[in-house]
């Protein structure tokens, strides 16, 4: 069979692109795009592995959209939210799988986005001309966390009810506008059906509407500026630097990473399906050991610790102020660390990164150890 198919394969390879491709190309002009893809290259060095994490985040986001739309088919917000999630989980064929894939891929997406952010940080890929990449990325991270927070409430079980109740106290502490914000977001004096209804609108309409254009802008910047190389690599002479074509080399590796991510989501969703607790009951006492999702854990623990050092409302306001200051500093890093050839600010910034990363890890582990 191989011997007889060999001449045909050769003929196909030798034939000029015609037929359907040519018909479409004449109308849409695909050739310049393909030419661009052929000339695009990606730097190759010992830190290249970290380049894949943006793509992995993107893939997990696409998976979120797909599984999210599928959940939308059966989910009913408001008074029916718990019952509809119960039906999805226990009645609808493979509903448990779709819901678990959505939850697992959400968590993995937050993780991938954090890895992506820290790798960009340590490669100093926020420096000129990539400042807007850093800022749009931070905005996407913020939206991702709001996605997580709003999605967590939708099943309206005991745990999601109390997590949201506690979580909404935090914006409530902002002096002046705090109570106004919680009034609007919560839709009442307590978390209830009205809250689920507006979290739903936020989760499936408002956030995607903000996220998608920002994501396109972020991807456009990646295309425009290409991958940044870490300073150590940039310092090497041009002849020693290596790169691979984006298409097909890097693209194939990207797809392989996507496949690995898909497998990880599938394995986790199948072996550890997401459960559903008892329905939320405003009169029930808060369960022992209540804690937020892992990506809010370090802030939660830091607030708890600060509360011990500086008791009372002042401690919490101080904590909020401290977080805000750190966030602002984190955002203006590209304006602070501008020199391209090392120096005091570059070293200081790297240390800030190590402290942030270590702090996040230590407080998260500490938080889980003491719940």
């Amino acid at each position, binding site marked *: 069979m*191989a011997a007889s198919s*060999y001449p045909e*394969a*050769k003929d196909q390879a030798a034939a000029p692109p015609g037929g359907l491709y040519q018909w479409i190309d004449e109308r849409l002009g695909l050739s310049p795009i393909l030419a661009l893809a052929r000339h695009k290259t990606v730097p190759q060095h010992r830190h290249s592995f970290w380049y894949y994490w943006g793509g992995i985040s993107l893939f997990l986001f696409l998976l979120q959209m797909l599984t999210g739309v*599928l959940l939308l*088919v059966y989910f009913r917000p408001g008074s029916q939210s718990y019952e509809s999630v119960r039906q999805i989980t226990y*009645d609808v*064929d493979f509903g448990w*799988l*779709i819901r678990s894939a959505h939850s697992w891929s959400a968590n993995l997406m937050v993780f991938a986005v954090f890895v992506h952010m820290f790798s960009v940080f340590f490669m100093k890929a926020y420096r000129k001309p990539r400042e807007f990449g850093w800022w749009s990325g931070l905005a996407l991270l913020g939206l991702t966390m709001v996605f997580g927070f709003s999605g967590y409430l939708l099943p309206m079980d005991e745990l999601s009810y109390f997590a949201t109740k506690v979580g909404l106290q935090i914006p409530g502490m902002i002096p002046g506008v705090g109570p106004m914000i919680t009034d609007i977001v919560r839709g009442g004096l307590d978390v209830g059906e009205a809250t689920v209804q507006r979290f739903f609108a936020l989760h499936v309409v408002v956030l995607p509407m903000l996220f998608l254009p920002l994501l396109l802008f972020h991807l456009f910047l990646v295309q425009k500026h290409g991958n940044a190389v870490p300073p150590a690599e940039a310092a090497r002479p041009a002849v020693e630097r290596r790169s691979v074509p984006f298409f097909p080399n890097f693209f194939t590796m990207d797809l392989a990473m996507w496949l690995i991510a898909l497998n990880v989501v599938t394995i986790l969703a199948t072996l550890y399906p997401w459960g559903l607790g008892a329905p939320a009951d405003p009169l029930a006492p808060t369960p022992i050991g209540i804690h937020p999702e892992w990506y809010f854990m370090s802030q939660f623990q830091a607030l708890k610790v600060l509360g011990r050092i500086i008791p009372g409302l002042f401690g919490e306001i101080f904590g909020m102020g401290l977080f805000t200051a750190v966030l602002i500093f984190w955002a203006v890093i590209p304006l602070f660390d501008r020199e391209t050839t090392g120096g005091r600010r570059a070293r200081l910034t790297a240390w800030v990164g190590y402290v942030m990363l270590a702090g996040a890890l230590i407080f998260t582990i500490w938080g889980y150890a003491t719940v």
Partner: protein
Amino acid sequence: MPRNMPSIPFEDQSHNRRTLLQLGVGAMGACYAASLGYPVYRYLATPAVRARALGLIKTVSIPTKDLPGPGTATMFLFGSRPSMLIHHRDGRYVAFDAVCSHLGCTVRFEPENNRIFCPCHGGTYDMNTGDVVAGPPPKGLKSYKVEVADGSVVVSRS
């Protein structure tokens, strides 16, 4: 290339390997598509599958006290199908599937015109037998067997 390799021309070898790789990747892709597509299909098809299972029921029992009396028709669901139980003035009961055989509209009982009528395209059926009297329907309405027992009208597949 090591010397002890069989002397197949290089191009032949690479083409064999390429064909094998392409087949492998294609087969793997098909496996992935199937194993992702199947749960999604089953997930989306659940209500239809459940409704079809509901349609497998053999009988429907309606208490006579719930029926309005002779000269009227009562709509009921046989599984998931809209169906019609007609109580004629002479006391007889007949029951039909109430879905027009033309394009699926639900038919209506018109005792004043002695007919079952489909308002969509004017299909007209005999109110005793369900046969087509006029209009575009290709065949009559499916009729059910009706028995009256213990204060209930029992409708079953004939």
